[in-house]
């Protein structure tokens, strides 16, 4: 919970991790990829305030205590959503698997939501693993990383027939939310790996699933925004937008926020710290303080008020994940808040 100027914010961190990227977890022969991946993440941390930078050794492998302190004790987060990333070709036990997240999280009841994942190239074994994970960890959401390397393949598209098989199976298992993370490789390599057209197809064909596009499709914000205007079940995950721009490039942060508020709207934007890339504390504090600057270049963007910030900080995600939000945190008068709070809607009252 975060409180500022008499306003209380229920904070759902919609995108965070508990990884081990230290050399003890590197796959022999793939060390350069394991090292390159975590160094790339570490460079992203460099876009946050200098006082929040970690040495690479700590960044590679942080403890459960670090996480609990950074995210909950100091970071104001009420509920955190684990987003697994496997990368088992590079990391022996995976980068951060559903199991690793849940083994840690089960010691702290009520604090975490365990999302799982699938890889459509894993066939029947992958479907069975998906079923097992959903049953064991109660997952309601998936994190899909389309650039993952798998037995010589450099990635997949959500519109692939195999992906549709898995999306259908996930839906049957009760999965509601699909977090999509695009990366730099895909098959074939001559196409744009960051293109979100495949998500557009999947969102149309699976109208009962919600698709949260992580880091708002960066580096294809324009394609993402366009899609989000056409697909009612597409949402913006703000990981990287707040962490990567708010401190380092405030001018571009304002512009990107302006575009998102215009095209996507405050009801469909979700905060995510991307911990441990960035700690939530400075992001929550900075975002609640943030105002669209008074600049003629920004004058035709919508403004973001306290209610919008409450939604983005937690209420929107709480709605997607059926997380109970105490009444004191609600936003009066918005349908979303009524649903979140379990109250009768104005129409039925």
């Amino acid at each position, binding site marked *: 919970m975060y409180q500022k100027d008499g306003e209380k914010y229920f904070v759902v961190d919609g995108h965070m991790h508990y990884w081990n990227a230290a050399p003890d977890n590197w796959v022999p022969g793939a060390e350069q990829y394991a090292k390159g991946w975590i160094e790339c993440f570490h460079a992203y941390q*460099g876009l946050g305030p200098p006082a929040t930078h970690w040495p690479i050794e700590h960044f590679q492998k942080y403890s459960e205590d670090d996480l609990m302190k950074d995210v909950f004790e100091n970071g104001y987060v009420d509920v955190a959503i684990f987003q697994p990333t496997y990368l088992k070709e590079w990391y022996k036990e995976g980068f951060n698997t559903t199991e690793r997240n849940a083994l840690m999280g089960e010691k702290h009841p009520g604090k975490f939501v365990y999302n799982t994942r699938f890889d459509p190239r894993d066939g029947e074994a992958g479907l069975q693993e998906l079923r097992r994970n959903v049953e064991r960890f109660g997952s309601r959401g998936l994190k899909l990383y389309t650039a993952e390397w798998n037995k010589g393949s450099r990635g997949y598209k959500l519109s692939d027939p195999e992906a549709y098989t898995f999306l259908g199976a996930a839906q049957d298992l009760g999965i509601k939310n699909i977090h999509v993370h695009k990366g730099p490789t895909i098959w074939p*390599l001559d196409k744009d790996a960051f293109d979100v057209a495949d998500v557009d197809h999947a969102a149309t064909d699976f109208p009962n699933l919600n698709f949260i596009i992580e880091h708002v499709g960066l*580096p294809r914000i324009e394609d993402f925004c366009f899609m989000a205007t056409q697909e009612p079940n597409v949402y913006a995950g703000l990981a990287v937008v707040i962490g990567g*721009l708010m401190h380092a*490039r405030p001018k*571009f942060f304002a512009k*990107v926020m302006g*575009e998102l508020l215009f095209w996507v709207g405050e009801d469909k934007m979700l905060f995510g710290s991307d911990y441990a890339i960035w700690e939530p504390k400075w992001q929550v504090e900075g975002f609640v303080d943030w105002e669209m600057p008074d600049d003629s270049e920004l004058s035709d963007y919508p403004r973001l008020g306290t209610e919008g910030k409450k939604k983005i900080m937690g209420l929107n995600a709480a709605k997607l994940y059926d997380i109970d939000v105490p009444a004191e945190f609600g936003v009066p008068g918005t349908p979303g808040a009524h649903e979140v709070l379990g109250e009768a809607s104005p129409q039925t009252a």
Partner: protein
Amino acid sequence: MSAPATAGSRGATAARGARGGSTPSAGAADASPGVPELLAALEAVRDPELDEPITSLGFVTSCHVSAAGDAQIRLRLPTYFCAPNFAFLMVADAYDAATAVPGVRDAEIVLEDHFAADAINGGVAAQAGFAATFDGEAVGELDGLRADFLRKAVLAGTDQVCRPLLAAGTDPARLLQLTLGEVPDSPPLRRLRERRAELGLAAGDDAPLLIDPKTGRPVDPGSLPLHLRTAKLTRTSLEANGSICRGMLRHRYDTPGQGEEEQP
């Protein structure tokens, strides 16, 4: 005193080490004959995704040319995992730009610190093309990808040209009637014309200012508000990406690139 700072030489094709003896400083090439011309040529090589020169982005680690006219250029990118297709285009374009400089006999382009560096460096050196370089992982060359991003550059450039006009009080509907020749000359206007010409779209004085970059047709009045909003969005996206790339590069390398320009 020492050779130019580079971040190591893991590129398999880096056969020759940089010779010492010169003292390059930030943004300045050494005094070997032909280097200024080489750097000028590299200014025409752009990151297709960001539509900015690789020089001003800081991607050129070092640039040398021997007395006999053999050029050696080392390139670097913001991350180890930058998309291999765009990386290939930059290395291939750098090769083409360098070998086109009068007096350059041959050029070796070495991309450093990238997961696909060996494949890209070897593929460009062999003039193999993208599909052959990534045999089995790619089905075609990169012309379609390049054209897609040129269209984005046209949209972003449209905002750069139109924004000052609108700020000066031009009625948005008037933009539909303007030709390129009627817009006051400026660097953004010249850039927009160049990008349109590259795509084979009308870029002369009598061509309309506002066109659909896919079809080349003039924008119709009903589409004007969406067209301008899309242009603005595309420019925001490209510039935000560029700012993140610069930040990542700075974290990765503490030495400026040849011809690097800080972003305001």
